[in-house]
């Protein structure tokens, strides 16, 4: 593997995100390992879909870094399917007679410390409802990031296929799809998602769906423009004269040219979706309770104003940091930088 500076950045980022991805193993009131009747560790036994998806996305990231893109894809698909079979919320403690190993932080985002334990038990203290702050931040970051990454993945896939199709296949159907997406693009996205979220029963997956719906047109427009530009190239005309279908043309000829643009836009999309999700959660229409996201934590911290609490500061810093990291990673490198790195 040719380890460039960019690779190191990615490796560091993946390492930093590991505690967030494996949040149920880091912050959980259930023990990690238990003896007695249950041979499996209860923390792993009671995973919710979001827990599984978080871990799977992190593992997929590692696979991509190791150059195993297909493994990553398979992992995401399998985890998406498996998450459908899991209960929506984390299952409570199983009957375990002997606890062999506790999680480092013995609280999850939902657990309330009714005994008001001493500060040494809570690494960063508690919020006003006696919930562990570190657990809240870890789970909040995990859910916000999960939302941003899943939406970006789906938007990139959908937008690339639809954009290439409408650019390469000119039929009344493709024109209709194009106009429809243009109409969708005209809606104020945040307001539309807000209204749609308020109309339906709050659900994480539904929120992802609305966000995908309103981010899709911009990705579509971008890919369509790029494909139309590439269509004029001689190699594209040659492939067409060889009888390549639009799908073959996209997959074998255009995708390598589109990869840099798609990566850049995907990183920017992550920042945008993070911002949108924060705004939605701030308005009370984000990830449904008892789950938390960074926007909801920001709102909770803001409600304590004029007292500036650690919750407010940490959630502000995390949102800014994540968005900034995404924008920096998405910054398209100049040819000089490219040659310097490789």
């Amino acid at each position, binding site marked *: 593997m040719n380890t460039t500076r960019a690779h190191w950045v990615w490796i560091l980022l993946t390492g930093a995100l590991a505690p967030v991805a494996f949040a149920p193993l880091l912050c959980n009131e259930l023990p990690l390992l238990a003896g007695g009747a249950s041979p499996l560790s209860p923390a792993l036994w009671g995973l919710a879909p979001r827990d599984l998806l978080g871990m799977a996305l992190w593992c997929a990231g590692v696979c991509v870094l190791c150059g195993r893109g297909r493994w990553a894809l398979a992992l995401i698909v399998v985890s998406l399917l498996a998450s459908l079979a899991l209960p929506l919320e984390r299952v409570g403690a199983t009957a375990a007679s002997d606890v062999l190993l506790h999680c480092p932080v013995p609280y999850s985002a939902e657990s309330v410390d009714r005994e008001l334990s001493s500060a040494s038990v809570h690494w960063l203290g508690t919020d006003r409802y006696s919930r562990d702050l570190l657990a809240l931040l870890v789970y909040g970051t995990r859910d916000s990031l999960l939302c941003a990454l899943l939406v970006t993945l789906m938007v990139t896939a959908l937008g690339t296929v639809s954009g290439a199709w409408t650019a390469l296949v000119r039929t009344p159907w493709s024109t209709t799809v194009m*106009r*429809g997406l*243009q*109409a*969708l*693009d*005209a*809606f*104020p996205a*945040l*307001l*539309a998602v*807000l*209204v*749609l979220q*308020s*109309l339906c029963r709050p659900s994480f997956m539904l929120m992802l769906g609305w966000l995908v719906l309103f981010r899709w047109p911009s990705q579509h427009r971008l890919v369509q423009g790029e494909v139309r530009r590439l269509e004029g190239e001689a190699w594209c005309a040659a492939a067409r004269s060889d009888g390549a279908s639009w799908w073959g043309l996209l997959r074998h000829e255009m995708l390598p040219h589109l990869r840099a643009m798609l990566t850049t836009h995907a990183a920017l999309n992550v*920042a945008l979706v*993070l*911002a949108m999700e*924060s*705004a939605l959660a*701030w*308005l*009370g*229409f984000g990830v449904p309770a008892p789950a938390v996201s960074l*926007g909801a934590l*920001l709102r909770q911290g*803001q409600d304590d*104003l*004029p007292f*500036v609490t650690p919750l*407010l500061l940490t959630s*502000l810093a995390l*949102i*800014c940091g994540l*968005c*900034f990291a*995404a*924008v*920096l990673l998405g*910054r398209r490198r100049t040819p000089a930088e490219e040659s310097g790195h490789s």
Partner: protein
Amino acid sequence: MRALGRALQRLLAAAAVLLFVLVLAFAALGSLAGANSDDGPLVAPQIHATPAERQLMRESLGLDRPLLMNADVPTAARTARRAWARVVSELERLEATGSLLEVAPLLSAFPSRELQTLDAKHSALALALRELARCAPLSGASRAGVRAVSTAVAEACQRLEAQGQAALSLAGLKPTAPEREQQLEQAALACAQGNESEEQRRWISVAGCAALPHLARAAEVAQEPRAQVLWDRVREVAAIQVPAGSDPRAFTQRWWRRHADEFTPAGGLESIARSLSSSRCGMWIAMALRGDFGESTRHQRPVAEVLRERLPATMRTGWLALVLILALAIPLALLQLRARARLRLVCDGATAVALAVPETVVAVLALIVLEPARGNEWIAAGVLALGGIFYFAAHLRVRLEEVLAEPWVFALRMRGVKGQRLIFRHLLLPALSPVVTLTASALPLLVSGSVVVETMFGVPGMGSAAADATLHGDLPLAMSAIALGGAATLISWWLAEVVQIVLNPPRAARGVSA
């Protein structure tokens, strides 16, 4: 010429997309439970509904008004069916909440005085209500029971149409429409002159609503006291309820001026337009295009009135933000262009930070640091502008660098044009195209506002109104804000295209965006 053609083409495409946006907004609004009323979502009475709630439901369903029904006028029959469809869908919704049995006796009490007028005795609704009163208690709160009532009503409507046709034949009116219209016109004129025959009087009586345009026309030309008699006849046939204290004749004349189109037959394109606009979707779009978005359930006022009230604050904040962006972005871009490498690096870092930090975070930081008073539009505008300043400056700088590399700039330099003269007199105008596009893309902000910033700073604008409407389930207001935002976006896109064409015709005609 080619550029003009392109602008027109874009305008047509924008109009088509605008129509689609409105249809989408209508579909979202119409597909909601309880939103089947043309007047917005209905208020469903619960098990222990108060008389006021029942009255509200009567008004929502239109049951407090006489139904203008005539078997001879197909549109009126369709109107009756649509009214009944609304009743049925509302009943289905109520059935899901288990309160149908409560509603059935409520509805059964309705065939009251106003339904017993000349046309209402033929009305589908009267029959439907009787059917409902008969069937609903027997069928209990089952879905099948409601379906049975619905089917019975549909059959009753068909039966009434057939009966109406038979009644017209019996009365001796010609079966084909133009001839019948002529007969009715002659009968109405005879009524106006006071020399109508017994047969003509019967025609007017049987034709009901179909005779209304002729009666009204005759009433307008008739002398007193025949005019008074004819207006009374119009009021009786149309079953107009005159509010207490109003002059019956003046009220009837006003009512007729508003509703004349519904009763006047049309042909050709007008009939197609009228047929399209008589559908719920068509009516909603036509109303929306006229600026009438229905009634806000939270404010109990027309949505248009609420929007008009909120628009100035949003426009003030938006303009302030736009002026701030333009006033600061252009000098910043010029500074970056002429800056040394280190300063440029600092500017790049600041741009990346400003672009990355979400609006929500900037707003919270402004609240912590500046502690602004509620409704402070300057701070709100500053928060809105922050990202835009750096975004505009980055695009302008890139364009300026592109223009600087053009051969004609090199030629100018060779002729000794340098420094500020080169930038302000020769470079700035050709480099402004991205600013124009970006300014156009920021224009919707002037109309739809920012939900988060306005809510956070308590600015009484469109964004905060939309957020408030969403929180309180005021769908007509929320959807109107969305539709308005969509329309503003489309118009701003089109404006950007036109300005690009004006600034740089060959480039725009090739479809090259800035």
